[in-house]
């Protein structure tokens, strides 16, 4: 027999989890199916809503000034401004203290690992003290064995962007790490557990040794930025401890992948799912579906369990499998497709029309995805919904370039919220 639920969400990223949480507040049995770990672990953990307009003007001080002008078909245009606001409120309530930025509609400017700045609407508490739009003299600290982040260079780059504060960088040896190829999680774990490390004269706790190494470089600064490795589950404790030891604010500079802030957000949302008794199944893919006789509704989907195809049935479904990166959108030399339901994905026939010759050009591939109606139902080529009970959310949607706009998380939240709401409303009494 099939495994039965009211709402079935396919995809465990930001959009899928938001849809599941939203639905779970309105329906009794919600299941989230997530094949592999989502792209949240690639993401910086920032919640961008809209940083640049589609004509690339910006950075936008207030995303809500520009949203009404977005072109037809843009996911924000589909769901409307009110839904975006509701979704943000919903997110703020779910994550609580862990995120900041809800006090204003305005974007914050966050320094990146490159030393650029980027506009974002919500930011992890671990990033809050580091805002580039907050004028405080800043020290960036990098480590010799973490070549992705060159702190002195990033500081120099920040100066080139005209930030209104003094900034400099220093590169240190990370206490307790001998090998040059330890994973980021090793750094985080060392700090989180405050493991004893060799401090020259005997062993001392890692955070103490790190603070001692940073201290001589603090003169004149009131905040210190590190790569995002300051602890894992208990990162707030690690940060607070360092702040107390150093006497200045401590923050993390977002980077990735891999990205611990993204993973922390994922954990927060998973905890919320558990709280709302959402059933979570991971590790097995949805590979096919069965439609009603008239083809208008999805009867059940088929999940591949090591060769067996097991039916999972629900009243309504949310497709949140991601875009090209999350493999919710697939491509071959001939075509671009959505692999589970084969929903229509509009794209030029000639693959040489999928990209621009400039690396940061206006790439059509960045907009690949399904087209939806205002209820977020994927539309077939004829403009009719593919299925009455299927909705789509997040990066599987087309019509927007989240990388250029800096709108990825916002679209996932807003469309996940709307898709989850409609999906729950669809549940048959």
């Amino acid at each position, binding site marked *: 027999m099939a495994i039965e639920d009211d709402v079935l969400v396919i995809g465990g990223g930001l959009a899928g989890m938001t849809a599941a949480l939203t639905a779970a507040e309105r329906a009794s049995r919600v299941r989230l199916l997530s094949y592999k770990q989502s792209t949240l672990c690639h993401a910086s953990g920032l919640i961008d809503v809209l940083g640049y307009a589609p004509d690339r003007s910006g950075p936008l001080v207030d995303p809500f000034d520009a949203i009404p002008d977005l072109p037809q078909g843009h996911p924000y245009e589909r769901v409307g401004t009110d839904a975006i606001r509701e979704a943000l409120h919903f997110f703020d309530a779910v994550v609580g203290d862990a995120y900041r930025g809800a006090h204003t509609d*305005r974007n914050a400017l966050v320094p990146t690992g*490159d030393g650029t700045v980027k506009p974002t609407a919500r930011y992890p508490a671990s990033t809050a003290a580091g805002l580039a739009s907050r004028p405080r*003299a800043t020290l960036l600290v990098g480590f010799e064995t973490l070549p992705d982040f060159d702190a002195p260079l990033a500081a120099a780059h920040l100066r080139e962007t005209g930030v209104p504060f003094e900034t400099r960088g220093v590169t240190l040896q990370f206490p307790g790490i001998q090998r040059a190829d330890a994973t980021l999680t090793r750094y985080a774990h060392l700090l989180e557990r405050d493991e004893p490390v060799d401090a020259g004269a005997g062993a001392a706790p890692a955070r103490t040794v790190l603070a001692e190494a940073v201290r001589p470089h603090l003169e004149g600064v009131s905040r210190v930025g590190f790569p995002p490795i300051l602890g894992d589950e208990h990162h707030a404790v690690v*940060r607070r401890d360092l702040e107390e030891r150093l006497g*200045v604010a401590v923050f993390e500079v977002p980077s990735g992948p891999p990205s611990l802030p993204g993973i922390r957000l994922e954990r927060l949302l998973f905890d919320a799912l558990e709280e709302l008794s959402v059933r979570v199944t991971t590790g097995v893919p949805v590979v096919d579906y069965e439609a009603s006789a008239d083809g208008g509704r999805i009867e059940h989907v088929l999940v591949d369990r090591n060769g067996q195809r097991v039916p999972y049935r629900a009243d309504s479904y949310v497709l949140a499998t991601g875009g090209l990166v999350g493999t919710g959108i697939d491509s071959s030399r001939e075509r671009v497709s959505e692999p589970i339901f084969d929903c229509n994905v509009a794209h030029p026939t000639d693959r040489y029309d999928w990209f621009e010759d400039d690396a940061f050009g206006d790439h059509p591939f960045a907009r690949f995805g399904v087209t939806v109606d205002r209820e977020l139902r994927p539309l077939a080529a004829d403009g009719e919904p593919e299925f009455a009970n299927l909705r789509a959310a997040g990066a599987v949607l087309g019509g927007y370039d989240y990388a250029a706009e800096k709108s990825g998380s916002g679209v996932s939240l807003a469309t996940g919220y709307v898709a989850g709401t409609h999906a729950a409303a669809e549940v048959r009494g």
Partner: protein
Amino acid sequence: MARDTEVLVLGGGSTGCGVARDLARRGLEVTLLERGNLTHGTTGRMHGLLHSGARYAISDQASARECIEENRVLREIAGHCVEETGGLFVKRPEDSADYFEEKLRGCRDCGIPARVRSGREAREIEPFLAPDIDRALEVPDAAIDPFRLCVANARDAEAHGARIETHAEVVDVLREGDDVHGVEVRHESGPGKRVHRRSGSTETITAEYVVNATGAWAGQLAGMADLEVAVRPSKGAMTITNVRQVDTVINRCRPKGDADIVVPHETTAILGTTDVEVDDPDDYPEERWEVDLLIDRLAELLPILREARTIRSFWGVRPLYEPPGRGTEDPTDITREFFLLDHRERDGVTGMASIVGGKVTTYRAMAETVADHVCAELGVRASCSTADEPLPGSEELEAAMDDFGLRSPIARRSRQRLGSRTRDVLETDEPNPVLCDCEGVTRAEVRDAIAQSGTDLNAVRIRTRASMGNCQGGFCCHAIANELHPAHDEPVVRAALDELLKERWRGERHALWGDQLSQAMLNYALHATTLNRDRDPARTGESIDYGAFDRGQTGDGAGAFVGEKTTDGGDR
């Protein structure tokens, strides 16, 4: 009249570098000028095959004999540039059996060791060969890294006193009456190592003799001296797979045709090629049909290629030349021989010769011919040593080399790239993290390359392979660029980084479907979403009103800290 240098060699490809090395070793004073990086022209855009000669064993036996001879020489003197893969000429059922026999006889005639393998034996050597391959000819083809080869020649030339100038474009050839006596050159960033954003300069360099080794560009160059050299540039497409499906060079055994070779190259395989005559070696279309043809046609030999991930494609221009009067229509029929055009004999103009045609496999022999000619012209008596003296890096490798604290495959790959220079480069007391995970390139190796080539990260790339793996630089370009700091300031580092990213994209564009399209989107997301490299105010020059943005709330940042000081008079 005193000249600045004895010999000017124009062109930093394999031929030019080979000529410079040969002459420098003979004690001549040499200056080499290259308008881009070393290998920037045709050398850096070939499939990396060190011919056994079997390919020409029927059509062009003179070339074939020369190939097998030079093949043996290069295995000796350029060990760290050559991988002894062996090669197979494989026959499908529909391919001519007579041609196969003819190829075998041709190999024997030319002294190319060849052995017939059954289809089954061929598949034992290369398991991914198609099940219907019925016979194969095993020959001593090999793989060669043209970048490393060229750089090693240039380094040896430098070690013997030569001046090597890259990013130095010849803008005029100085001719007085019937004598060529030098060139005018434009240095992109001044003479010496290239540094981004440093202003350029021009220089006049006079010489006793000028060697035009600019390959497909030889006609344009000769034109500056009002001489005519009718090169017939022909483009060829090559597609690179993400992993090696084969460890042996696979050729299709049939008379001629496009898309008939797969060369294992370092971590990848290179599929080649096409052959289309072009008007301008700097401007020709890079077309989809060429990529599709390579994949579809070569999948007949190796079915796994049909679904294999490709990471980029590139095009090279062959410097084909045919002596006046032959009038060959089809570029595939133009001879692959090389020609030394002595402009004194040919045009009555002294002081210059052009070298055209040929291929990388025979670059050293070509260089020897040119050097002999130059010596004769200048009345110098000195003999060639390039066939016997190993190139830098190819000297005897220490028998037991330690791992320098690196994981074994990283140490192994580094040794394969660096050869006998391994210890010099990798021995360090500082942390030596891997900067390019795909190719296993460490910081020490990148720093060594930077020491050779200034801020030019493409020059670092060709020396180390950093950024040449599956992410096509998406995850490592900035880490490589970081190594330029603090010797160079941030705007220079940024310019160098942007140039490398641009170059990576140029080839990756041709592989945008399936896995590589997803990779490209991930790279784009990392660069644009996470790092905002596309809208970086430092790049766009936009000035930002920082004060208009959210400045956080009091206590933001966990709240427990004290003493947060403002530097500009506090919150406004």
